[in-house]
């Protein structure tokens, strides 16, 4: 099984990017509100200043060569109606002060452009906003530019602007929190189809190589198509391998059977004892080859199926009896009786029936092979809380004194069985099947008599 290393999370990335966008937008909101509100406040002040200047300007007239300015009460009182600001004014004719604060700075461009001009300056220790309103006035024979300057401090504006900044910041933070929550929901929502697809693939059985039929969003369709194509290829490849195994078994076993049959016919027709001996050797070799080929194919099949167990609920007693039934003709030849004991209500084992049958057959094969004629083989099925155990006890020659771990190695055989045909694959197959099912194989001496006890322990379902 290959391990897939996770590198970054799609979900986190999406969420982080959405949050980043939300943060940028929040800042933009903050600055926009602040700037706009400040502009609005400044515009309000400018409007009042120019209204005041207009009122003063309209009250200016020339009389007998003299400029008279009757400053209306409202011109200055209106400035006091909004905030308690300091107010200054000045009326100039060309560059001469007619009335008011004669040191109030006049924006330079007012007189030249003839249009209202606003300026911000420091006057008498405070920042003031100055509106300058120029106008032409005929005094006697000449025309002068009469400029009315009205100025107001911006202390209140500073307070208002602070208030606005705080409100704008609150709005920005609120917006960020809201969009953060929405981002979280949106991310989860966006990831849902991906999770659903992953789950639907994960839920499939090991043998299920059919195409994934879940509907998926457009972006996932290529992935899904690749997955389905891959599974189709895998499925075809598996089918080919199984066909090959069946094919190989057929191709190896059929000629061997022919060789054996022809050798037996020949055995009957030859007379010389040495020729008979040769033919018996041929038959023995053919048997050994056939058995080895069968076991090799079994081993290949076990290896293939172990990766993808097709598990079902199995009653081990039924399974054992099936195997005993299939092997009894061979046993009968040697007058060996095989008995099966254990209750019918034994817990089920979850496993691949073909593999487990194969394993049990290998054990019984061995038992038959190494048992003397007219002996007994016992199959005992027992269970405890979490396991089901199958013991196969024979009365054969036992395991010998050699290294017992070698017995389950591929092509490994005991030292005391050189005289009997064997491939050395039987116990290897058993071991592989049992460990694929999470169980274990133990080989011990038969406690009752001389012989071997092979025990399979499998977890119960």
């Amino acid at each position, binding site marked *: 099984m290959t391990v897939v290393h996770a590198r970054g999370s799609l979900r986190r990335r999406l969420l982080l990017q959405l949050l980043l966008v939300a943060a940028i937008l929040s800042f933009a909101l903050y600055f926009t509100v602040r700037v706009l509100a400040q502009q609005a406040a400044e515009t309000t002040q400018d409007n009042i200043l120019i209204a005041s200047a207009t009122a003063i300007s309209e009250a200016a007239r020339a009389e007998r060569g003299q400029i*008279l*300015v*009757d*400053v*209306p*009460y*409202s*011109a*200055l*009182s209106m*400035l*006091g*109606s909004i905030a*308690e*600001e*300091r*107010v*200054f*004014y000045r009326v100039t004719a060309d560059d001469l002060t*007619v*009335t*008011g604060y004669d040191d109030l700075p006049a924006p330079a461009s007012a007189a030249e452009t003839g249009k209202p001009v606003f300026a911000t300056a420091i006057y*008498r*220790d*405070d920042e003031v906003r100055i509106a300058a309103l120029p106008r032409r006035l005929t005094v006697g024979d000449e025309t002068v530019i009469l400029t009315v300057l009205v100025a107001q401090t911006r202390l209140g504006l500073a307070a208002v602007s602070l208030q606005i900044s705080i409100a704008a910041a609150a709005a920005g933070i609120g917006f960020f929190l809201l969009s953060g929550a929405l981002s979280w929901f949106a991310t989860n929502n966006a990831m849902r189809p991906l999770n659903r697809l992953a789950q639907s693939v994960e839920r499939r059985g090991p043998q299920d190589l059919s195409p994934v039929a879940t509907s998926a969003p457009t972006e996932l369709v290529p992935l899904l198509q690749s997955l389905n194509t891959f599974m189709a290829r895998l499925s075809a490849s598996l089918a080919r391998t199984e066909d090959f195994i069946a094919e190989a078994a057929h191709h190896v076993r059929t000629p061997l059977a022919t060789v054996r049959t022809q050798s037996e016919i020949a055995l009957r027709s030859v007379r010389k004892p040495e020729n008979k001996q040769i033919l018996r050797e041929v038959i023995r070799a053919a048997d050994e080859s056939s058995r080895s080929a069968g076991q090799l194919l079994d081993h290949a099949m076990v290896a293939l199926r172990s990766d993808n167990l097709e598990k079902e609920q199995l009653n081990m007693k039924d399974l054992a009896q099936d195997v005993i039934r299939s092997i009894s003709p061979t046993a009968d030849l040697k007058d060996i009786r095989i008995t099966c004991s254990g209750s019918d209500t034994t817990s089920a084992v979850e496993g691949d029936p073909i593999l487990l049958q194969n394993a049990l057959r290998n054990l019984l094969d061995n038992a038959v092979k190494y048992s003397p004629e007219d002996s007994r083989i016992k199959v005992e099925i027992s269970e405890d809380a979490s396991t089901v155990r199958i013991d196969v006890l024979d009365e054969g020659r036992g395991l010998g004194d050699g290294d017992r771990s070698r017995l389950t190695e591929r092509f490994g055989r005991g030292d005391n069985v050189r005289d009997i045909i064997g491939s050395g694959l039987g116990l290897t197959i058993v071991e592989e099947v049992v460990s694929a099912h999470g169980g274990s194989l133990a080989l011990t001496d038969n406690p009752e008599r001389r012989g071997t006890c092979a025990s399979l322990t499998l977890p119960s379902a």
Partner: protein
Amino acid sequence: MRVSYIALGLIGWIWVQMTSAHGFVAEEERLFEVDRPAATLNILSTADLSVFAPLVEAFQARNPTVEVHYVTASSSELMKALYEEDAEFDIAISSAMDLQTKLVNDGFAERYVSTETASLPDWAKWRDRLYAFTQEPAVLVYSKIAFEGLPQPTNRDELIALLRENPDRFQGRVGTYDIRESGAGYLFATQDSRQSESLWRMAEVMGRLDARLYCCSSRMIRDVVEGRLALAYNVLGSYAAAHLADNTDLGILQFSDFTTVMLRTVLIPKTAGNLDLAGQFVDFLVSEDNRDLIEDLTGLPAIDPGVLQREAAFRPIRLGPGLLVYLDQLKRRTFIRAWLNAMVQP
């Protein structure tokens, strides 16, 4: 050499001290001494010493280590002292609301805020620098004998009609402020002109009756009391009330169309040397608890936040930049000329 420099410096310093001490014209001056003075409070005020002395003593009773230096001057001299000469005072008290406003507007007053100042209604303070502590209505003071047999006027229109219909009775016997001389008179007249057009009709009628012009309220009241005047228009009611008890035939009338109310205000000049003490004195004047005390000791009506609800005709002069308008030299000249044209008829 060095000695002569020091001598020159000393002479220069003395000269500066002398000019600054005597730049403006003070009228009265008194040091309210205490046994162990810890601090001195310098007050520049337009209120007469006789009126204010009890109040200063009440303040000293609560602050027994404070020595008070009380200087009185006219409102224009007070303005001159603070605006032009940077005279060092901790407190400036004046009834000239326009000049006080200008001092604050032009940056000659310290900001001061306390729980006491917060108890004042909005119309009695401006920019946390100018605080009113009395409200003095402008009233009509008249002789009941002179009005015998005539209906009692309640507003300006009725008074104008009465004056028009009885020229014989009032010829040469009406008085009002000479607004050229009196700051309060100018303030009242300009506020009248703002409220209604009746000022100009009033001036015309009074001018036709050869109205007599006065510098101050007290003389007008005296002339009414002594029978030389039948009525005096726009007199400070607070001064007139003092004479009511002694003279049963003296009448005071608050017009029902509108009654201009002058506010006597206090501010802390920028030049104040002892801000804490100045703040204490401001608190003493504006405190809600001391309002009865001020009325008892000075006879001046203290600020009453609820007065506008009760007296519909009361129009306290509004503190704020509007008051700067009538300080404008061109405006003042134009206004006085128009007023004189109506009042002094050939």
